[in-house]
């Protein structure tokens, strides 16, 4: 029984360690990715080449009220 318990104990420790390792690896990967994005200005490139042109097209196409339809109330 003791042996089994020991095994179990070491097993849960290992599992925890494994989870921590995975978590660490995941965080390290995220950190690495973020640093890569930062260092190579990938955020800037995405915004400049993809997001801004897309939004500009959208704003250019937007329907806007004709400013000259706006009344000019003299009695204000």
């Amino acid at each position, binding site marked *: 029984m003791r042996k089994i318990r020991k095994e179990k104990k070491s097993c849960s420790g290992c599992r925890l360690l494994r989870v921590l390792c995975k978590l660490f690896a995941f965080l390290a990967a995220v950190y690495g990715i973020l640093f890569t994005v930062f260092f190579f200005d990938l955020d800037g490139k995405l915004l400049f080449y993809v997001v801004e042109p897309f939004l500009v097209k959208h704003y250019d196409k937007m329907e806007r009220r004709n400013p*000259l339809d706006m009344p*000019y*109330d*003299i*009695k*204000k």
Partner: protein
Amino acid sequence: MKDLKHLIFFENLLQEANNDLVKKAQGEGKKALGYTCYFMPEVLLDLPGCFSVRLRAPRSGSPDMATYYMSNRTCHYGRALFERALEGGFNFLDAQLATETCTVTCRFQEHLGRMDVIKNPDFFVEFTDVPFKKNENSMVHFRKQLQVHVLDVLHDKLGIDVSDEALCKAIEEHNEICRLITEIGAYRKLDNPPITGYEFQVIQLVTLTCPKYLILPYLRETAEELKTREPEPKFPYRCRVVLAGAENDDPDFTKLIESCGALVVADRHCYGSLPGREAIVVEPGQAPLDAIARHYLNTSYCPRFMPQGEMRGRKKYLADIVKEYKADGLIVASNKFCEYWSYERTMDALILPRDYDIPTCSIEKEYVNASTGQLRTRFQAFVESVEIKKLQEAK
């Protein structure tokens, strides 16, 4: 039409700021006080012992020296005045009663104060703060400013009598000028007026640039003459227009418009008579200075006024003038680099045709109009469009 008796005399007076009447008044020991803006009440500068000269720079060429000081990106009017000052054309001035009412004329007047431009050792520049509203707070403020920066200064530095009696006398003389100009201007409401826009502008300008007491006899005579002046048998113009806009002291500009077939029947611009030639009313018990301060704020329709009712009311005022003077259209002209009138002109050109059905021609011009060919084309096209509109309406 038969020529006006004094027209050539008046035209000659406009050839120089230091004209014959100015010289005569100074010869009589009176002090010459320069100013540029309606907000400096000319009536205060016409107190006994002094006289007002609204500054112009007639026959200006290229303002090279002024452009060095003020760059070529400022209003040509301000630069032309400064150039004239640098040339010595304003050396006759005893003082400049200044206002910071538009940027470039302000800068011009500051240069007069800072640099030794006016060759008169006693010359000085005094600024008055002009409010942006017509509320009671502004009236009180303006009155205080006029007291301290005009009357007190004139009294202390030039020994001018600034008593209420003197003010009342100046108001009386001023009101006679206003009455005569209004009487002469009213002929323009007739279907076939016995006076052209050019002639009227010349007359109006001499009242701004000459000592009042010396120009009055000529003005009275001209008013009498107009009572019997026969217009052309048939209205010789193709349409009638109101000329509105910024600073405009150039009768040749009006002449140009009229040569394109549009009679200028009303003048709502900085050197014009609408507004500007309304009589000052002193109520019983009211101090004359109070009446003057209120008059100049209340009568002005300058785009400098900021309250909502004022901004919007200006459009109505212009439309009313068009109606009163039976004009077929409106020409709004602003000087290049004039911030106030750039916007005002843009809005006039959009709102008056739309809301008041008034054909409007929007023009950006220089103080000295070299490009008359382009302007002529614009005016001719405008006159044609007005004619077409009239024809369509007749159908």
